[in-house]
C-alpha cells in the first residue's frame, strides 16, 4: 500500500515536472516552428520554408541591433567583472569606514524595480550631458551587473583559506603578485560565473536599456519591442532560433566538460 502510494507520488511529480517544462518551452517551440513559416504575418502556419534564414542575413538593421547587444553585453560584463571582483576581494579582506553603506548600496540595484533605476540613470545622464547611445548603455548595464558579480565572488571567497595568501607573501611574493598568481586562480570559478550572469542580464535587458539608449543605437530587445507594435517578422524568429540552438550547444558542451572534470 505504502509503496503504491509512493509510486503514485512519483508519477504525479513526473507529470507536474513535464507540465512546467511545457509551459516554459511552449512559446519557444512556437517561435522555432514559425521561423519556417511561408506566411509573413505569422498568424497561421501555411507552409515550410528556409527563406527567412536567407532574408535574415540581408536585414542589416536587425543584425546591427544584435551586434550592439553583444557589444554592450561584452563591454559591460568586462567592467562589471573587474570592478565587482576587486570590490568583493577588498571588502572581504579589509575593514573600513562606510563599508556598511557600500554593502547596502550594492543591494539597491537588486531590489529596486528596473524602471526606477532606468529613469534615475536617464535623469543623471541628461544632467551630466553624457551622450545617450552605446556608451550610456554600457555604463547602465555595468551598474546593474556589478552587485551580482560581487555576490557570486563573495560566495566563492567565503570558502577561501586566507593562509595560502600569507604563505605566498612569506615566501617573498608581492601583494599584487599574490593576488594574480594565488588568489585569482582560486576564486576564478566565482569570477567566471559572475561574468556569465552579468552577460546574461545584459543581453536580455529591456527596461533599463529602454530608458538609457539614444537615437539610432538599438539593442536586439529594443528592436523587438519596436517590431512588436507593427508585427514581428519571421526573420526575427529565425535569428532567435539560431541563438537558441547556439545556447543549447554551449550548455551541452559545458555540462559535458563539467562531467569530465568531476
Amino acid at each position, binding site marked *: 500500500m505504502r509503496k503504491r502510494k509512493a509510486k503514485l507520488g512519483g508519477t504525479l511529480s513526473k507529470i507536474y515536472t513535464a507540465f512546467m517544462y511545457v509551459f516554459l518551452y511552449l*512559446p519557444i517551440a512556437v517561435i522555432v516552428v514559425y521561423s519556417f513559416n511561408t506566411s509573413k504575418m505569422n498568424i497561421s502556419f501555411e507552409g515550410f520554408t528556409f527563406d527567412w534564414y536567407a532574408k535574415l542575413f540581408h536585414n542589416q538593421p536587425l543584425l546591427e541591433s544584435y551586434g550592439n547587444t553583444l557589444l554592450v553585453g561584452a563591454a559591460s560584463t568586462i567592467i562589471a567583472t573587474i570592478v565587482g571582483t576587486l570590490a568583493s576581494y577588498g571588502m572581504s579582506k579589509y575593514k573600513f569606514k562606510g563599508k556598511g553603506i557600500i554593502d547596502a548600496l550594492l543591494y539597491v540595484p537588486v531590489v529596486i524595480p528596473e524602471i526606477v533605476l532606468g529613469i534615475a540613470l536617464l535623469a543623471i545622464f541628461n544632467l551630466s550631458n553624457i551622450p545617450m547611445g552605446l556608451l550610456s548603455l554600457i555604463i547602465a548595464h555595468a551598474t546593474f551587473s556589478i552587485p551580482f558579480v560581487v555576490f557570486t565572488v563573495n560566495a566563492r571567497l567565503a570558502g577561501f583559506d586566507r593562509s595560502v595568501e600569507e604563505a605566498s607573501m612569506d615566501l617573498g611574493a608581492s601583494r599584487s603578485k599574490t593576488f594574480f598568481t594565488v588568489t585569482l586562480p582560486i576564486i576564478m570559478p566565482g569570477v567566471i560565473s559572475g561574468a556569465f550572469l552579468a552577460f546574461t542580464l545584459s543581453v536580455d535587458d529591456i527596461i533599463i536599456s529602454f530608458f538609457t539608449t539614444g537615437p539610432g543605437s538599438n539593442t536586439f530587445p529594443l528592436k523587438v519591442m519596436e517590431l512588436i507594435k507593427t508585427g514581428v517578422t519571421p526573420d526575427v*524568429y529565425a535569428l532567435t532560433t539560431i541563438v537558441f540552438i547556439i545556447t543549447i550547444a554551449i550548455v551541452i558542451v559545458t555540462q559535458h566538460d563539467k562531467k569530465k572534470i568531476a
Partner: protein
Amino acid sequence: MRKSYKIRNKTIPLLATVSPVVIWLTLLVAAPLIYVFFLSFLSTDGYNVVFRFSFDNYINLLNPTYLEIYTNSFIIAFFTTVICIVLGYPFAYIMAKANKKNKAVMLIMLMVPFWTNSLIRLNGWKTILGKTGVLNSILIDSGIINQPLEILYTRGAVLLGMVYTLIPYMILPLFASIDKLDDGLLEASNDLGANKTKTFLHVTLPLTFSGVFSGSIMIFIPSLGFFFVSDIMGGGKSQLIGNLIETQFKAANNWPLGASLSMLLILLILILVTIYKKSGGDMKDLGVM
C-alpha cells in the same frame, strides 16, 4: 612606529580594490536616486523641468485615474506572486528531492528558456493566444468552439505573461531553501508519528518560509514595473504603475511627476524589505539568481 607602517601598508591595496566600486555606486546609484528625489519636488513647463519647489506632484498622485492604475497594478502583482508560489513550490520541491544528476539537468532546463529574449517569448504567447492564434485555430478546427476565445489583451493574459517571465525568481530561492533543509528533521517528525501532510505543514513549510518570502519580494516588486508585459499581453488596456512612469518619462514628458511615482515605489520597497529583515530574512537571499 610599526603600527603606522601597517596602516599605510593597508591603505593602497584597500584603495585599489574598493575605490572603483565606491565611485561607481556613488555616481551611478546613490546620486541618480537622490536626484530623482529632488526631481519629484520640481515642476514642468510642459517640455522642460522647471526649478520651482512644490508638493504638487505628490498631490497629483492621488488622482482617481492613478488610484485605479495602482489598484490594477497591485492586483496583478499580488496574483502573480501567489500563482508563482503555487506553481513554483511543488516544482522547487521535486527539484530539491531529485538525485544529483537530475537536479543539475532540471536546473539547467529551467534556465535555458531565459537565455532567449523575454520579449520574443512573450510574442510567442501572443501567437498562441491571439484571436486567430494557435490555440483558437486548434479549438475551432476540432469543433470544440465556434467563436474564437478572447484571451489575449485581457488582465488574465497580462497575469500569464508576468508569471511566465518571473517564475524562475520564485523557484530558485525556494529550491535553495528546500535543498538545504535537513532531512533528519523530516525523519524525526515522521518518527514522532506525524503523517506527510502534517510534517509538510509544521516542519517543511515554516523552515522554507524565508525562501517563499524572498521569492515573493523578487516577484512582487518587479511586476509593478514591468510595463512591457502589459503592453504586449494586455494591449495597453491593463495599465500598471510601470506604464504610468514610462509615459511620464517618454510621451508626456513630465519627469517630476514620473519621479514622484518612482518615489512611491521606493517607499513601498523600503517597507517590504524592512518587514523582510525584521522577520529574520537574510539580504543575501535576495541576490540569488
